[in-house]
């Protein structure tokens, strides 16, 4: 009995701003100077103030740039912008959340109802909203001597609030994804888009982009019907894996399926590989469990990065009860059509749009277009080469196969370099022609042999060419030129 994976993603992305979301502290917690020295983060608790530490009486203020960045992301994902949007408090207790609530959005997120084409299939975007990041917890057993006064025996959680209050954008997808590969493709595209928009570096190693997947497996309605009709459990599959796959390719639902009554949430996946592995493992685990007649429950599972498996996180916490309510310290945001259009005008061509243009309009192979549209700098390099009248295929090949040239030259320099190279090649050919004539004149016997059909005589003449050019000529080229001159001779 085939099961149909149903996957939704929630992606958290730290925005690239100078200051934090609700206070004026620097959001640059990976100082540029340190980056060059191996990417060390700033010393703990050095980018903190009463607001981002949640001290009583401190008041938040809204970072305008962060709001604009989220709206641009929403527009890039074809969302509707909520023109009356506001922040809410999401209440829960955890040591890295000093206020006891996170300022987030719930009822009126900035952006709703979007969609994004991923490999030709549409993934619905439920919403894109803005919130604040929490602090960082480190769970370590440290030597008791390094502490002053310990409440428990060396078992501690250490807290650094540098990242507390960094603007955090959350992109929530509909459960429109049906394979681990498609989930990874979606994550990669989201990462490319935030980079094209310049709103985040999306560096997963630094935690600037974190993925959370919701996985369940559904049975196809047709299967259930077939089974009920025949009243037999040994009915052949009504939709094989291959058929299923081809339907997915055509972006058709594989007949209908019922959204399963449970879903498994896997949090904090910080690489594309882990997203892939966690989903693959879950699909297999859930399929096997259902085939064994087990009952699956709604739960949050952790991912073991070494074993690449998920594990149940038995937590005593009951169902979430965040008691959202509008943040009384922050006035609502009213967004005019004019403001939205101003932000829309700032959106560049996006990677998936560029890819389509390169294939449809410029005739590149999808594999070439994929590589060229991955980064904005590469794409603009390519476009400049084409503007300088380089043939599209030639430009594409250079970028795909000779990245060292791209690194070394600006587009104009590269075009100059290629022209010079072509001129030199022609010059070389002229010189070789002259040498060939000279050698043919000096060696009448081998020439006569060659003309009477002795192919090996050519080898002797090639040897003479090599000697004359001190080995600089390419043997194949020398032979070709000799043949041309001999024919005319």
């Amino acid at each position, binding site marked *: 009995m085939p099961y149909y994976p149903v996957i939704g993603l929630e992606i958290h992305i730290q925005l690239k701003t100078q200051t934090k979301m609700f206070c004026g502290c620097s959001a640059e917690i990976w100082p540029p100077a340190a980056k060059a020295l191996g990417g060390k983060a700033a010393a703990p608790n050095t980018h903190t103030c009463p607001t981002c530490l949640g001290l009583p009486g401190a008041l938040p203020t809204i970072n*305008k740039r962060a709001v604009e960045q989220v709206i641009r992301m929403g527009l890039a994902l074809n969302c509707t912008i909520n023109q009356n949007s506001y922040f809410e408090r999401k209440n829960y207790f955890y040591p890295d959340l000093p206020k006891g609530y996170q300022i987030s959005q719930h009822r009126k997120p900035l952006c709703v109802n979007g969609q994004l084409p991923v490999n030709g299939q549409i993934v619905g975007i439920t919403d894109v909203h803005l919130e604040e990041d929490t602090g960082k917890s480190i769970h370590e057993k440290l030597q008791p001597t390094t502490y002053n006064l310990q409440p428990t025996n060396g078992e501690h959680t250490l807290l650094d609030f540098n990242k507390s209050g960094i603007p955090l954008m959350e992109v929530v997808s509909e459960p429109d994804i049906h394979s681990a590969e498609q989930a990874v493709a979606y994550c990669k595209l989201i990462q490319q888009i935030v980079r094209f928009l310049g709103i985040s570096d999306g560096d997963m190693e630094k935690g600037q982009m974190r993925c959370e997947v919701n996985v369940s497996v559904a049975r196809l309605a047709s299967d259930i019907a077939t089974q009920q009709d025949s009243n037999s459990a040994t009915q052949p599959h009504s939709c094989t894996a291959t058929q299923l796959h081809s339907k997915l390719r055509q972006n058709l639902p594989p007949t209908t399926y019922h959204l399963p009554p449970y879903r498994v949430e896997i949090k904090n996946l910080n690489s594309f590989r882990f997203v892939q592995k966690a989903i693959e493992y879950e699909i297999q685990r859930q399929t096997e469990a259902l085939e064994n007649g087990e009952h699956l429950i709604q739960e949050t599972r952790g991912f073991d990065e070494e074993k690449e498996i998920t594990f149940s996180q038995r937590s005593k916490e009951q169902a979430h009860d965040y008691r959202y309510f509008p943040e009384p310290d922050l006035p609502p945001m009213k967004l005019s059509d004019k403001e939205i259009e101003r932000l829309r005008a700032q959106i560049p061509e996006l990677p998936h749009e560029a890819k389509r243009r390169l294939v449809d309009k410029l005739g590149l192979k999808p594999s070439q277009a994929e590589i060229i549209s991955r980064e904005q700098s590469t794409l603009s390099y390519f476009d400049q080469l084409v503007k300088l009248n380089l043939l599209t295929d030639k430009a594409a090949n250079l970028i795909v196969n000779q990245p060292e040239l791209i690194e070394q030259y600006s587009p104009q320099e590269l075009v100059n370099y290629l022209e010079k190279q072509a001129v030199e090649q022609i010059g070389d050919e002229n010189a070789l022609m002259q040498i060939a004539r000279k050698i043919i004149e000096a060696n009448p016997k081998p020439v006569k042999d060659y003309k009477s059909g002795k192919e090996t005589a050519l080898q002797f003449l090639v040897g003479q060419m090599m000697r004359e050019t001190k080995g600089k000529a390419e043997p194949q080229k020398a032979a070709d030129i000799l043949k041309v001159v001999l024919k005319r001779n």
Partner: protein
Amino acid sequence: MELTKSQTQHIAELARIKLTEKETGKTQSDLSTALKYIEVLDELDLEDIEPTAQITRLSNIYREDELKEPQTLSQSETLSNAPHQSNGYFSVPRVL
């Protein structure tokens, strides 16, 4: 509305407040009284009225994303009220 005992316990847990059996009973009736007190609002016809989240009538109050006069504290100031600390970090009982 009369709160049930389990609702009362749930609220106490969310607020991280430990209640004895006796306190639970008292809290249950106190909270129920408070709820009853504001239930009078249910009599109003609010059909066409947008919920009010703000009474300041302000909107679009933003801060420009510029580093100027931040209230940022030094590490030692940040940690000055921490009951426990270690190497620049706040230290709390292990939570995971």
